[in-house]
């Protein structure tokens, strides 16, 4: 479903990613881990076709997002970092807009499951951060995409809302390939089936999630340490 090989991206002289390769198949829930500036957001932007790679190849459902962005966009749902929305729109207008572009209609079942029905006609600017996050998630899931890319979906939320968003992802992302980035290692432990760790733009771990409580945290610390002090 996703094949990434030798992926590099530079901004001017600064290399954000160098030679990253990985694969993901249907049903994988992949946690993207790394410290700030490791290249997680850049990788996600490359996967959706927002950025073009400096070198390397990406295939999403057989299409190269840098060249064939539209067929890729038809099969994915994306929630960028900080979840940008149109604050002047109501939830209904925003989800209607997203559904209109995806040539579908807003899914009332999904809206109910996400818990947005009582805020459906409220302006987005009136919503709390947690509910805005739900709107972003609903928008990403509109049209039932087979691939979900979520850039730090729980950042900035209180622990209760973090739990809500996590359980929504777990429940609604069934039978989908999910890529999500996070700084909360327990979140990766709870949601992921696979872990990818990036450090300074390089892939330092790609494999199944280790078993056991605290194992992701230990793996993360070990991988980063090994990369920085070989």
């Amino acid at each position, binding site marked *: 479903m996703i094949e990434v090989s030798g992926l590099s991206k530079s901004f001017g002289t600064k290399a954000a990613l160098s030679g990253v390769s990985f694969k993901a198949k249907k049903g994988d829930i992949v946690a993207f881990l790394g410290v700030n500036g490791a290249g997680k957001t850049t990788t996600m*932007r490359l996967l959706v076709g927002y950025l073009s790679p400096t070198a390397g190849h990406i295939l999403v459902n057989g299409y190269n997002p840098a060249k064939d962005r539209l067929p890729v*966009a038809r099969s994915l749902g*994306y929630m*960028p970092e900080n979840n*940008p929305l149109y604050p002047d729109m109501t939830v209904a207008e925003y989800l209607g807009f997203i559904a209109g572009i995806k040539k579908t209609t807003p899914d009332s079942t999904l809206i109910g499951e996400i818990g947005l029905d009582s805020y459906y006609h409220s302006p987005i600017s009136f919503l709390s951060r947690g509910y805005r996050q739900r709107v972003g998630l609903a928008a990403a899931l509109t049209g039932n995409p087979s691939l979900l890319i979520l850039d730090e979906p729980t950042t900035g939320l209180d622990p209760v809302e973090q739990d809500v968003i996590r359980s929504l992802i777990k429940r609604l992302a069934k039978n989908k390939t999910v890529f999500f980035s996070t700084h909360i290692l327990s979140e990766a432990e709870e949601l992921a089936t696979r872990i990818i760790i990036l450090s300074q733009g390089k892939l330092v771990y790609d494999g199944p999630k280790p078993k056991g409580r605290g194992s992701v945290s230990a793996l993360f610390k070990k991988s980063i340490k090994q990369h920085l002090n070989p």
Partner: protein
Amino acid sequence: MKPLIKKELGAIFNSPAGVGVIVLFGVVASFLAVKDIFVVGSGSLRPFFALLPWVLMVVVPALSMRALSEERQSHTLEVLLSLPVSEEAIVIAKFLSLAATSAIALVLTSAVPVGLAFLIKLPLAETLLSYAGMYLFSLTAVSVTLFFSACFANQILVFLSAAFLLFFTMGFSLDLLSSFLPRSVQDILYPLSPLAHLPLFQKGVLDAGDCIYFAATIVLFLWYAVLSLKRRT
């Protein structure tokens, strides 16, 4: 494209600033027309149509500056470009909604010619074609502003760049230029000015060359806007 146009029109007409600019334009432009009629004592709309491009040069960039720059600044462009919609469709949708807004703004000034028509015999073809010329000028200003809006996230920078480029090119057709530019340079620059393509409209003559000039300028800047949007990396 329909959801994009609906969103754009909603963004303009739900915003106090957008509505304020349109209404203010209607009031100022109507005042300018009335001033010529009652203060100067001329029953012609020619002075009004001669002045209108200078007002539109400021109003249209003010209305259009946020179109793409706001999407860039608030990072909603990233959401938009992850959806199955092409860069061409985004630019055309923005253009069409601003074209509709410009038409509404120009219609707001029509009270003056309609009122005048009750008092004197107003040349219909001249008046309608003058409005057509003003509309083409407005669409040109929209496309120029959209291009800068695709380039910069800062709306003030977009407004200043668009207004300056329009002012600069409009200056090519002013007599002021002939005092310090060689004739050969003037001959090259004059046809590039949008003002050089309005007089025939104001005389009630529809000239294919003038229409081609406006159409080509609009398409050129819209194409540059698309290219700028595609070169986001």
